[in-house]
């Protein structure tokens, strides 16, 4: 994944959330974004996932710039997968139907082809016997894993995960992180926003610290989390790592 972001600005009304983000990665499989709440991580993720258009600036993946019109962005979104903090499953459909919906209605598979494709992943991630249930009958961990599968079964070029474990208790968090770790070992590219620093250290090729609307640090995980010179970054990590 070669991501290039140059001068990305995002505003919501009078508030400027991203104030000129510059970031370049070369051949990175797993990029993790960390930083304080309100610092702009999720806003940035939504931009690179093609959900929002920045007020200014350029974003490109592997040399291809992101479209700026809704139709172009929709086409882009069909090639990637996004996972949200609040699971965002469709509550009126079973887990299985949640998986089949994008395959059938967006990617043109027949229902039989779609069912065949999801069978393997469901079994591999131990969700096959839960797939017929509606989201309300699933645990938080199961819901999030179904949500990840929904993003995965369309065979995306890369995944975007926005704090996928922040709404989960420690046991389910471990369940979901294990799944993401397995995806990494399968070679799936992803950009992950998380507060799980231990996981970030293990799984990230590069970490970018987003604070005050800018990239305050960027590099290998050890460098950013443990040995960063920038005082705001050091202060953030010393506070949260002291807690755990």
């Amino acid at each position, binding site marked *: 994944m070669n991501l290039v972001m140059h001068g990305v600005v995002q505003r919501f009304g009078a508030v400027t959330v991203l104030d000129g983000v510059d970031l370049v990665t070369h051949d990175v499989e797993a990029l993790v974004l960390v930083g304080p709440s309100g610092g702009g991580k999720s806003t940035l993720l939504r931009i690179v996932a093609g959900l929002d258009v920045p007020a200014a600036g350029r974003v490109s993946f592997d040399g291809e710039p992101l479209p700026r019109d809704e139709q172009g962005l929709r086409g882009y979104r069909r090639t990637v997968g996004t996972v*949200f903090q609040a699971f*965002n499953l469709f*509550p009126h459909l079973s887990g299985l139907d949640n998986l089949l*919906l*994008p395959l059938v209605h967006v990617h043109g598979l027949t229902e039989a082809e779609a069912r065949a494709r999801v069978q393997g992943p469901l079994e591999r991630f131990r969700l096959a016997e839960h797939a017929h249930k509606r989201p309300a009958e699933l645990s938080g961990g199961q819901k999030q894993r179904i949500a990840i599968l929904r993003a995965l079964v369309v065979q995306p070029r890369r995944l975007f995960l926005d704090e996928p474990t922040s709404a989960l208790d420690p046991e389910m968090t471990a369940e979901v992180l294990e799944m993401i770790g397995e995806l990494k070992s399968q070679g799936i590219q992803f950009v992950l926003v998380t507060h799980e620093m231990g996981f970030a250290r293990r799984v990230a090729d590069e970490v970018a610290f987003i604070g005050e609307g800018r990239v305050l640090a960027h590099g290998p995980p050890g460098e950013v989390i443990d040995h960063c010179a920038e005082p705001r970054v050091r202060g953030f990590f010393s506070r949260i790592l002291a807690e755990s």
Partner: protein
Amino acid sequence: MSRWLAHCIVVLVFVALIAAALTRIDSPWNWQGVWAYRAKFLQGFGVTLAVSAAALVASTVIGGTAALMLGSRHVLVEAVARVYVELIRGTPLLVQLLIGFYVVASAVGIQNRYVVGVLLLALFSGAYMAEIFRGGLAAIPQTQRDAARAIGLTPWQSLRLVILPQAVRLVLPAVAGQFVSLVKDSSLLSVIAVSEFTLAAQEVNSFTYSTLESYLPLAAGYLAITLPLSALSRWLERRFRYET
């Protein structure tokens, strides 16, 4: 005690109270006189059924369209819908029927009072439906729209596959209530001389001077339409329920 038994007991107590009240009124009953006009009653009942059914369908279409217009970003589109809803909901149906038939319809040249009656009834109910639908659409969390966009659904697909299935379940009770009101409101069409059920009862009363014998069957007749409607609605709610 089973629910069915409890309902029966309450209905029987209610009927007994009414019967007791009626026996205290000492005037003689004239059921034979009213029975002679049963064809008139049946015909009126048929007209009420037909008019209600037609207005029901039309008002759902009008209400749905208006609800989408209320959510439009085009200022003029939203304004048309908003003025329509406020005007209709803020004035009595009686006034709308009188002005609609004697002023507007004759100006436009539509003579058929049945067509005008159905149209005016549909416009009346449509305004209430619009607000019910708009509330239902607004109650769907933004996360659902986010998820639909993220998997690459077009706005129309997202409405059809994600938003509407959820919104329909939300508004079903309120819509059923509106349908029941519509059936009863159709009785007001008597003021533009549509020969529906209530007008039939009024005419039989003026022929026979037997008020209670004319109006009790009227109440029973409306119950015969509204009770199945309510039961249907409750069945649909149970059938399509999902936990959240």
